[in-house]
């Protein structure tokens, strides 16, 4: 195995437990939620209650079509909780492999080897990406299996696209954390900025449309790019994927630019 591969796989091995922990948590959330679908399918009360809410509120909280399979999944999982938790997990993974390790003085063992700083940072960014790929793939499998088990009838392509967009949205916030970590080895700050951006992005996408003057600004939120087209119902346009991937690549480059320029923090 060559050095480059080790630089990626070493950190990824370190993240096994976090992958397992978050995977079990998020997988359980999806499985348990989907298990309630048969009860919802049979009850018209909730749909009627939602119909009585102001349309803006219904949109803001993703409650439209709550009685349909797509509406049920959107309102309970993909409007907010799954993308947010996945983003938090990815930000934590990014922080854990970069600024938290550096702050604890544990990068020095590697950086005193014949390895370029750029390579180490890029490799760890790739490890975060692979971590997210594995996590997203696992959640997708849980979702599809759960749907099949309880008979939640929804187009597989729509589910795949939605979960992938969730993963890419999380990737964007993780790379924001990487960009900060590249310049500032302060784990608390890296976590705070990554998570604040994820939560703030949600609030902008969900609440700005409730106000006429703020509504146009809701398009600035990556949440809007990822989920704005209602991917559980409509095929997501290709630009939505690119709008998440391109800034993510740029943010990693920003992180690398910082990491090769500054002092490595001592323990």
């Amino acid at each position, binding site marked *: *195995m*060559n*050095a480059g*591969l*080790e*630089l990626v796989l*070493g950190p990824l*091995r*370190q993240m096994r*437990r976090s992958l397992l922990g978050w995977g079990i948590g998020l997988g359980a959330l999806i499985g348990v939620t989907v298990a309630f679908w048969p009860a919802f399918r049979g009850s018209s009360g909730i749909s009627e209650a939602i119909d009585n809410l102001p349309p803006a509120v219904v949109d803001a909280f993703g409650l439209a079509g709550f009685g349909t399979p797509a509406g049920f999944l959107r309102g309970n999982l993909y409007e907010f909780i799954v993308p947010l938790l996945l983003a938090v997990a990815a930000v934590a993974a990014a922080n854990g492999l970069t600024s938290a*390790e550096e702050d*604890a*003085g*544990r990068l*020095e*063992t*590697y*950086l*005193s*080897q*014949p*390895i*370029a700083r750029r390579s180490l940072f890029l490799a760890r960014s790739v490890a975060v990406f692979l971590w997210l790929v594995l996590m997203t793939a696992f959640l997708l499998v849980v979702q599809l299996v759960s749907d099949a088990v309880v008979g939640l009838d929804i187009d597989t392509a729509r589910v795949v696209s939605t979960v992938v967009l969730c993963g890419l949205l999380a990737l964007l916030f993780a790379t924001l954390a990487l960009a900060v970590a590249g310049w500032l080895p302060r784990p608390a700050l890296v976590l705070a900025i990554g998570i604040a951006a994820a939560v703030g992005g949600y609030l902008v996408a969900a609440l700005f449309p409730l106000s006429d003057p703020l509504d146009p600004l809701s398009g600035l939120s990556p949440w809007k790019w990822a989920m704005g087209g209602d991917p559980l119902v409509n095929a997501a346009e290709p630009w939505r994927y690119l709008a998440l991937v391109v800034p993510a690549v740029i943010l990693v480059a920003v992180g690398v630019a910082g990491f090769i320029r*500054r*002092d*490595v923090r*001592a*323990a």
Partner: protein
Amino acid sequence: MTVSSAALEQPPLAAAPSGPAIRVRALAKRFGAVEAVRGIDLEVRRGEVFGFVGPNGAGKSTTIRCLLDLIRPTSGTIEVFGRDPRRDGVALRGRIGYVAGELRLPERMTSRQLVRSISRLRGGLDEGRVDAIARRLQMDLDRPTRDLSSGNRRKVALLLAFAPMPDLLILDEPTSGLDPLMQHEFIRMVAEARDAGTTVFLSSHVLSEVQRAADRVAVLRAGLIVTQGTVDELRGRARQRIEVWFADDVDGAELRSIPGLEDTVVDGRRLAATMSGPVDPLVAVLSRHPVASLVIEEPNLEDAFLDLYGDAS
């Protein structure tokens, strides 16, 4: 510990033929308002063991971390084997074995897994040599690094530093946490490495260790080099404690006037003092009196070191 020197006998990678191993000119490093290193000059010859001593916070680790390009100097120049660590850091670190002062090993793996990982990053470590050093340092490589005592963690770092047979060993407080037996073993490993042609840059505040291992020493205090020279030179500058018992009472004024004596105490037939410089004037005075007993303690580096601190502060 029968493995002994076999593991360290192979010559290091070919070094460029001439020039010092390390040359530092006017190195300064500032962290915000703190001037950790304030303009130091240093030259470490190839193949020597160079002691770098000073109290905590003197700037030893800061200097060392500049050599490895972990941090960047505020001003000044550094050459390691004639190359700039900033520009040629990857190639240089391939020739360097390093033990960090504030040692934090990667967690969630055993020592063996860590060694394998570093081996892959360095393009392979000789497994026989790894095992030999591990046996020599009485290590259990299958324990997770996070469960190791600080001494055992230090052994892992020593193993990682010595195993590649580097041209240059940069060791920052390498024996802290090691028991005396292992400290002794470490001194032997350093001597063997030097015999095999490796240059050793040894930072320590354990003076006896530097005294035993180093050819030359630089003393750092508050970011400046207070003095440098061979261990013998430094020892020569140190004050020696003397104690003389005369057969009869002697004239205190005569004894107090001896050049080079300080802290002189004359108490009946006893003279106690510290002395620096040549011993001749003392001998001249003593020759005029019957001397019952005479003790001149051999100066050690610790005294030289404490003197330098006294001078500088």
